[in-house]
């Protein structure tokens, strides 16, 4: 049962990861990822960011992605937390955690979830730069990253 949360509030990475392993002795591997707001994107300075999403569909999409990962690899738990609303450089945006008996499964599933999240979960970023606000455009490199799992 994937753990999926979409929230404005900051999250505590260590505490969230602890939940995935605490009291268990069958976890051999915990792979995780945290995405953060950078102060620069495509050469422009970024002073703030707003994340819009599609409530309802977002949670479903993240849940589907986790379930697809669990169908592909031998996993114990999957966790995705994604923030929305106003963020600033250095803030955490997203975290993914995956547990498995073995590291290969945990690594692959964690990267798969991030790649699919980047192309399938309905979030949109608007950046504030010195030149005003602009919607971040989707990147073809993200499409390519998601595409390679199709093979």
């Amino acid at each position: 049962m994937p753990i999926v949360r979409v929230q404005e509030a900051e999250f505590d990475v260590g505490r969230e990861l602890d939940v995935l392993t605490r009291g268990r002795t069958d976890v051999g591997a915990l792979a995780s990822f945290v995405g953060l707001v950078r102060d620069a994107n495509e050469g422009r300075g970024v002073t703030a960011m707003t994340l819009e999403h599609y409530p309802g569909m977002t949670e479903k999409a993240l849940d589907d992605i986790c379930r697809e990962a669990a169908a592909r690899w031998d996993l114990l738990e999957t966790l995705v937390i994604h923030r929305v609303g106003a963020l600033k450089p250095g803030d955490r945006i997203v975290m993914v955690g995956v547990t498995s008996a073995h590291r290969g499964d945990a690594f692959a599933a964690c990267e798969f979830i991030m790649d699919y999240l980047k192309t399938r979960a309905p979030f949109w970023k608007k950046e504030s730069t010195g030149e005003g606000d602009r919607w971040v455009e989707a990147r073809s490199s993200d499409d390519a990253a998601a595409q390679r799992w199709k093979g």
Partner: protein
Amino acid sequence: MVTLLYFASLRESVACSREQVPLTADTTTVASLLDQLRSRGERWAQAFAPGKAYRVAVNQQMADLATPLRPGDEVAFFPPVTGG
């Protein structure tokens, strides 16, 4: 009736985030709904012009032009996603 939702840059382009429209005999698919929206005028025609990158979801599942519409559906239009 179907509920239409618009997100992000597309929401700003059409200056609308949510509306309800009747489902007529001519609007049985996403494609025909889009034709109806484009006929509203320049702003709408441009937002959904051929070659514009936008995505459609029906009832919160990714959909395409051929996806059929039924009364009560929630249809969302948005640009390619950029989360994570």
